[in-house]
């Protein structure tokens, strides 16, 4: 490689040539464009109602400080844009130095996420993001580590790592972009696709029973389990914030529309006409009601019953009051998945405090060091039976 070192001249302050079209056209100096679907006129993108932004805050940075100069390459209209924008709006509000924020992703459309963030990041391999996050967080517990993953990435190839991450309780946020499809590989069914799903790989319909991701996380003893949706940026931001505040593995499932291969997969829960009656937003300490307060959930023995609050028969006081710290309740509500008469729950479904993995790891290292003192290499090498040959 004759040109290997020659090409790195010492005063390189200009950008080395990249392939044509690799970068978006230059904007005015110092202005970083926030992410938005290409072609959208409003810089904030069409999906975010005004006022949900928070373009400034905790660390004195703004949203644009968190967007990289790389072209965002998701399909126009993809739900991933709203998620990216929400993260970029949230980060300035968090009290985290920018250099301490790291995004670790797996493979898939969702996996491209770190390239669009002007933070540290690593786009790893399919399904394994939790493993890299584990090593990184153990190496430096000060870092604020976010994992970005897809439904195939997290629950198919990476299912093993996900459950072990949850059980270990590494302090990290898992953003699972669930679009119930394999986006990047162009539309095969995923482990969250409904039974009977017709895709390129299942022309006669899928015969796999789907996972309910929050139930998987609860089953793996995640200490924080929540669900939100791309079409409700305000809720999404609140959930991301709550995930971030949680010390431990915060598992956040985000219903994300893939408008190319699975358009409308969650419209039942996200669109105006049906959202109220199909989506239930749980709040800790509040009765479980939905449909603008017209319906509620009560406990009938160990089963849930949807009740009509508009008649004299039931009132809000009959509704179950949500307790996000109650594991049994979380399992009951989190399991509402395929019963047509019950709504789909969103919000923080479960949260409990327990020691984090990296904290315990370092506590143990500190304890051993406190007990034995700093290791002395000379002594260690000479431990056990030794003998000396004199000169």
């Amino acid at each position, binding site marked *: *490689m004759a040109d*290997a070192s020659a*090409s*790195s001249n*010492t*005063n*390189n*302050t*200009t*950008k*080395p040539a*990249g*392939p044509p079209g*690799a970068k978006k*056209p230059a*904007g005015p*100096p*110092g*202005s970083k*464009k926030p992410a938005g679907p290409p072609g959208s006129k409003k810089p904030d993108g069409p999906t975010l109602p005004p006022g949900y932004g928070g373009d400034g805050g905790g660390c004195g940075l703004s949203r644009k400080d968190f967007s*990289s*100069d*790389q072209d965002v390459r998701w399909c126009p209209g993809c739900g991933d844009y709203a998620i990216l924008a929400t993260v970029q709006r949230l980060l300035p509000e968090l009290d985290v*130095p920018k*250099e*301490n924020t790291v995004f*670790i992703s797996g*493979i898939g459309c969702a996996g491209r996420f*770190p*390239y669009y963030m*002007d933070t*540290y*990041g*690593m*786009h*790893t*391999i399919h399904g*394994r993001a939790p*493993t*890299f996050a*584990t*090593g990184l*967080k*153990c*190496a430096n517990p000060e870092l604020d580590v976010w994992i970005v993953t897809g439904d195939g990435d997290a629950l198919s190839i990476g299912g093993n*790592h996900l459950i072990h991450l949850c059980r270990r309780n590494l302090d990290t946020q898992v953003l699972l972009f669930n679009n119930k499809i394999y986006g990047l590989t162009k539309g095969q069914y995923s482990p969250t696709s409904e039974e009977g799903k017709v895709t390129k790989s299942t022309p006669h319909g899928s015969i796999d029973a789907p996972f309910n991701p929050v139930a998987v996380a609860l089953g793996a003893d995640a200490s924080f389990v929540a669900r939100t949706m791309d079409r409700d940026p305000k809720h999404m931001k609140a959930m991301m914030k709550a995930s971030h505040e949680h010390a431990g593995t915060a598992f956040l499932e985000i219903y994300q529309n893939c408008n190319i291969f699975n358009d409308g997969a969650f419209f039942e829960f996200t669109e105006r006409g049906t959202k109220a009656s199909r989506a239930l937003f749980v709040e800790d300490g509040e009765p479980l009601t939905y449909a603008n307060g017209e319906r509620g959930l009560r406990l009938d023995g160990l089963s849930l019953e949807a009740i009509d609050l508009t008649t004299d028969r039931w009132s809000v006081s009959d509704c179950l009051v949500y307790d996000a710290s109650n594991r049994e309740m979380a399992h009951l509500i989190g399991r509402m998945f395929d019963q047509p008469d019950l709504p789909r729950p969103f919000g923080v479904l479960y949260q409990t405090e327990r020691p984090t993995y990296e904290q315990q*790891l370092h506590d143990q290292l500190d304890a051993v*060091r406190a*007990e034995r003192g700093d*290791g002395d*290499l000379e002594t*260690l*090498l*000479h431990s056990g*039976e*030794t*003998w*000396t*040959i*004199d000169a």
Partner: protein
Amino acid sequence: MTSPSDPAADASTRSIPDATVLFAGDSGDGMQLTGAQFTLASAYARNDLATLPDYPAEIRAPAGTTYGVSGFQLHFGAVDIHTPGDKVDLLVAMNAAALKVHLSRVRPGGTVLVNTDAFAPRDLELADWSDADPLHDDTLDGYEVIEVPLTTLTREALSDTDLSKKQVDRSKNMFALGLTLWMYSRPLDPARDWIRNKFSDRPVIRDANLAVLKKGAHYAETIEAIGTRYQVDPAAMKPGTYRAVRGAEATALGLVAAAHQSGRSVFYGSYPITPASDILHEISKHKNFDVATFQAEDEIAAVGAALGASFGGSIGVCGTSGPGVALKTEAIGLGVMTELPLVIVNMQRGGPSTGLPTKPEQGDLMQAVYGRNGEAPLPVLAPASPGDCFYMAYEACRIATTYMTPVMLLADGYLGNGSEAWRIPAVDDLPSFTVENTTEPTDRNMMTDDDGNPQFLPYVRDDDTLARPWAVPGTPELEHRLGGLEKEHETGNVSYDPENHERMVKLRAEKVQRVTQSMPPVPVRGPRQGSLLVLGWGSTKGAIDEAVDRCHSEDTPVSAAHLRYVWPLPADLEALVDGFDRVLVPELNNGQLIRLLRNAYDAEFLPLNKIQGRPFRAAEICTAIRDALTPVAS
């Protein structure tokens, strides 16, 4: 390997240069412990030594069966000891099964000490010897046999204690130890000290063991059956402080030393697998050094976490065996692409698939050099002895961080479980290990991006090593993204540009090639020119050296060179190979290094392959050397 030249019957003491002893018995007979104590005594006698345990594959095999036999082989001498021994001079068989399994390893005329109490019909039946009577038929013809009723004698020695029969019987290995220590004129004191220490809080057991040990030695002195007592003089070893060290232990110590000397923490991720688990066990004991251990959910998680830790500024290391390396393949490729330090320790075992989990083989060289998708080169190192595992583990960490690359360390179960007398290095003599993170923006490592903002360039390279900067999360102003998609030269941005891809593939290859700059000259045993060079790699060094030394003592003209830095091939190897008419390449596989050599050099390479899950015996290599030197009749 020398037998007493004159089998005279008087119990005079005869000086011999070296001897190989094999203790074999049931898993519950304490053979590993007996072997370890004999080793210690030999160390106190200032002998050079090498040992190899031979554990049964089953965890708790039924007592008395052949597959429950546990062995410990020890080769010690007044001369240089390279291997745990080709042929056994003394076999101590605690039961019939042990005799059945190991008799074939005893040299003709060698000594067999049998515990006659364990040859009852039931014992013979368990050893699949139902119809035989090995103590009285011709099975032991041609061997010197010492029959000792070990169990009976131990019971007699302890007849006045309160110990249970089981406890009494358990100390019969001390009888055997005392007896064999006497036979080879070894001191009893190291074993005594050990017993006192080990059972300090159980005085009854302590005293019982001490008594039996002594009885064993006295018995040996008294009975007539032991015709000759041997003396093995101190070896002329380099001055220094020595200890016995196993390869797995030495590997762990090398990693600890790397953390200590670099001032950087080592993160060791692993999923248990034979024969690599002992590294995890050992390194876990030293957490007051800067080492963190992580028992992962699988090998993929282990390597992922190690690479993630390297991203965070630690030295990420993961240890496993071949099947685990197979699982790690994709993540190692990510390490190549992201150009982060990573050390993968492969304690090789017989393959393919689950293969021979407890048996050594050098079958994973091709996997190490080529076994990834895409053009994904990485340096491969291979320790040559148990103690060398220390240096090569340390070296692997140095190369990984100096060149920002994954490094594969190829040891095997023979090194991992085997031990040798290891001269403990002075910490100050270890190669210096400084590696800095990039912490500041500079003219060289920054550019202005399209938006007019300063942007760190994670793929600018060092002129000498071609390493890219190691900037870790938490460093202000150096934010960047790594990943498995092809990187644009210098910016590290995702790039699908055809020329860029070719350039990056070549740059990564050139970087690995430059690791040759860090390699010491290939050491040569014998003249640097001649008709035959024996060229091996990794764990076969002991057998090759012994074979070549034997040939030299017979004036057979042959030289040997050994690769510990296997890939890239060292820069001085070509000239060395050119100096010989032919090159014999012994390998414990079906011919892997030889393919790399044939691909690189224009010389005549002759394979010597052994694929039996067993190390080479020096004699096998001697024969191959003689054959290679014999002109072929045409």
